[in-house]
């Protein structure tokens, strides 16, 4: 049966073939939460009387938005998260506290977020704000990489983020992109930044850089983004028991002022 990649990913987790439009309940490969959302999660858990969590070993919480906490209220969010972990007996090694790194980088480098995996964030599926994405694209400093995945890979890790160094989410620095003799008019500065992203960790081999550009496109409003699969990606899918099939190859975009993954 022909199926989209999303159908294959969901079908793997459902244990049967699924079709778009179906309602299926699945256990995600991983479930992530962040410090800016843990307050709502805790509130809902209490409101609806949640006493036990499924697959606690597959849950991780990252403190990277309020790191370090800049207000008492943000510190309270951190306290709530720690207390939630204790209340449900979640493994503390899955709570990446202040200084442990940015969620997206950690999740990708740990190999938790990979093509073919389903790793939504807890309760809500995250994606970056347009403002943030534009900011990330504008700051071509190697320590401000993006590491998101695209929606077609079923991952919740879709936020432009900084690396694991001690950089905090404050005001965007002035763009630091220098080009000589000039930057092509049809290229975004983010292209340059994406080329310069350092990668490491076990998750690195299965994430072509073009994925980042897909991610950024989606974050900035695109409904869908696709890049050609390379041999590594195909092998990864096959290791998951997913037949990648014939993947579409994007057509090179005309020079309309917007760049796409296929243009570089």
């Amino acid at each position, binding site marked *: 049966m022909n199926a989209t990649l999303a159908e294959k990913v969901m079908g793997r987790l459902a244990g049967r073939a699924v079709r778009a439009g179906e309602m299926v309940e699945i256990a995600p490969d991983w479930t992530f939460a962040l410090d800016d959302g843990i307050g709502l999660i805790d509130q809902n858990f209490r*409101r609806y009387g949640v006493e036990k969590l499924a697959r606690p070993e597959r849950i991780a919480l990252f403190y990277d938005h309020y790191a370090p906490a800049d207000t008492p209220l943000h510190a309270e969010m951190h306290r709530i998260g720690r207390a939630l972990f204790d209340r449900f007996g979640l493994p503390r090694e899955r709570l990446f506290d202040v200084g442990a790194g940015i969620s997206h980088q950690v999740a990708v480098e740990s190999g938790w977020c990979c093509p073919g995996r389903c790793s939504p964030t807890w309760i809500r599926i995250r994606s970056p704000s347009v403002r943030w994405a534009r900011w990330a694209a504008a700051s071509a400093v190697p320590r401000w990489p993006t590491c998101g995945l695209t929606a077609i890979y079923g991952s919740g890790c879709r936020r432009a983020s900084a690396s694991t160094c001690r950089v905090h989410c404050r005001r965007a620095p002035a763009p630091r992109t220098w080009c000589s003799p000039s930057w092509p008019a049809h290229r975004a500065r983010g292209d340059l930044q994406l080329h310069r992203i350092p990668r490491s960790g076990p998750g690195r081999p299965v994430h072509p850089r073009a994925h980042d550009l897909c991610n950024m496109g989606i974050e900035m409003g695109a409904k869908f983004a696709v890049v050609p699969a390379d041999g590594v990606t195909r092998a990864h899918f096959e290791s998951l028991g997913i037949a990648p099939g014939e993947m579409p190859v994007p057509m090179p975009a005309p020079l309309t002022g917007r760049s796409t993954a296929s243009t570089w």
Partner: protein
Amino acid sequence: MSGTVQFEGRATVLGDDIDTDIIFPARYLAVLRPQDQARHLFEPLGEAVREQVMAGGVIAAGWNFGCGSSREHAVTAMLGAGVRLVVAKSFSRIFFRNAVNNGLAVVMSEALAGAVRDGDAVQVDLRAGRARVAGVAHEFLPLPGSVLEILAAGGLWAAKTGMTGADA
């Protein structure tokens, strides 16, 4: 199906690409109670817009409503402000799901959204796919039954537990 799937109110018309930073700025993400979140709803658009939204309870928007950060607060802030229906030409997919999961009615219809003028009285029957805008009848493609069930229950949590937020 049980529960209300009919909504009415007076529309506030917004444009295209209203992102979640406009709906609910990120600096307030630690504000958890919907009633408190409502104080910051559409803050970048000014107090007058927020008051109009709160008085009318219906938003009509253009393309790609709710794009940007997928923060659930964007939906709960609207609910806290008394918004019960958003009609748009299209939605950001994650916002759309957040809306359904929290019991905020959404209608995606280019024709219907385009027909609404600021201040119009809007009535919508989600199940029937019918609407009246300033007295004029319109039709739209209803949401799938399974999605309507979640909306009718008041959101995903309520649909799964049989409880409502008021039970807390």
